[in-house]
């Protein structure tokens, strides 16, 4: 690898870390909550940290410790954990056209969470192919370490932290919707896309507001896609 390529990869790595900083506002408070809840469910601090390290999927981790604590059969715990993560099936194929042939990508898929996907889906196409691996590595590692670090904080000192700074715990998670707004705004390029994206936003909002956050994303995405294709076929029929 030439010095120039190494230098470009290094810069890309830093840029990936910088672009992923907004994720911390959403990840750390939720990870602190996970560490705290896992402790309360009977898991030791180190067990909570290992779960965050190897499963690394927010909603399903909460479900995992909750179901184990309630005494559910372990096979059901695993099945439910995987079912909640089923939406991840469509993330990597969406990024595939921008990924290079490097084998490291396979291992980096461990860090392909909802938020990292949203970030990568917007940023990777804009980067030269020589910088994509470095960029994704930086972004993915920062997000992963913040999740694991937040879990450790929650497990070891969660009650004290949330008691001392309740407002911070309340405010920082807004970084996630703010980031999604920024990632999505450039995609409102036509009435067709506006209708599809608007439908997905409203449906997910309604599901989540009514206590169904895990169903919100897949159902809203399918309805948004349906709106897109129905409107597109109607437009073609009129022409």
């Amino acid at each position, binding site marked *: 690898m030439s010095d120039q390529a190494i230098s470009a990869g290094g810069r890309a790595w830093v840029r990936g870390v910088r672009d992923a900083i907004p994720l911390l506002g959403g990840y750390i408070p939720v990870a602190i909550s996970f560490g705290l809840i896992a402790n309360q469910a009977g898991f030791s601090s180190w067990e909570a940290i290992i779960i965050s390290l*190897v499963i690394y999927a927010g909603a399903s981790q909460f479900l995992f410790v909750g179901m184990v604590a309630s005494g559910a059969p372990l096979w059901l715990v*695993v099945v439910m954990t995987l079912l909640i993560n089923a939406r991840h099936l469509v993330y990597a194929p*969406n990024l595939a056209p921008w990924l290079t042939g490097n084998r490291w990508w396979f291992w980096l898929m461990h860090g392909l969470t909802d938020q990292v996907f949203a970030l990568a889906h917007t940023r990777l196409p804009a980067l030269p192919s020589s910088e994509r691996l470095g960029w994704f590595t930086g972004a993915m590692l920062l997000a992963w370490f913040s999740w694991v670090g937040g879990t450790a904080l929650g497990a070891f000192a969660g009650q004290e932290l949330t008691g001392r700074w309740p407002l911070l715990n309340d405010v920082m998670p*807004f970084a996630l919707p703010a980031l999604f707004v*920024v990632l*999505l705004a450039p995609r409102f390029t036509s009435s067709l896309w506006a209708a599809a994206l608007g439908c*997905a*936003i409203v449906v997910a909002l309604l599901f989540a507001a009514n206590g169904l956050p895990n169903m919100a994303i897949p159902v809203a995405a399918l309805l948004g896609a349906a709106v897109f294709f129905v409107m597109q076929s109607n437009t073609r029929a009129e022409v």
Partner: protein
Amino acid sequence: MAGELWVAVMVAAAGTLLMRLLPLVWMQRRLAREDSQGATAAMPRWLGVLGPVMIAAMLGASLVPAAGTLNAWVATAVGGCVTLLVWWKTKSLGWPVVWGVVAFGVVRFLNFVVI
């Protein structure tokens, strides 16, 4: 943690990784096959639509504030508008998020001070 619980953690971890990884292998093979046949390698249309609508769905789900009070909803609306406005002006990634969080925090803080 008991032995069988460790097995459950590892199976859940491996399953989650495979769900993120195997579709990539499938898609890369498909693109390579189309490329070798001389066709223009392209994603299926439905997949190209599903990506952005998934992000839209994540936005919708994340807009519901944890507090669930009127003030939290107002703070969400104000924070969202400020984020959009700063994005419109700067077309950057970081500053709109920073100002959106600040605006959200100011509205939430006013609620704490007033009440």
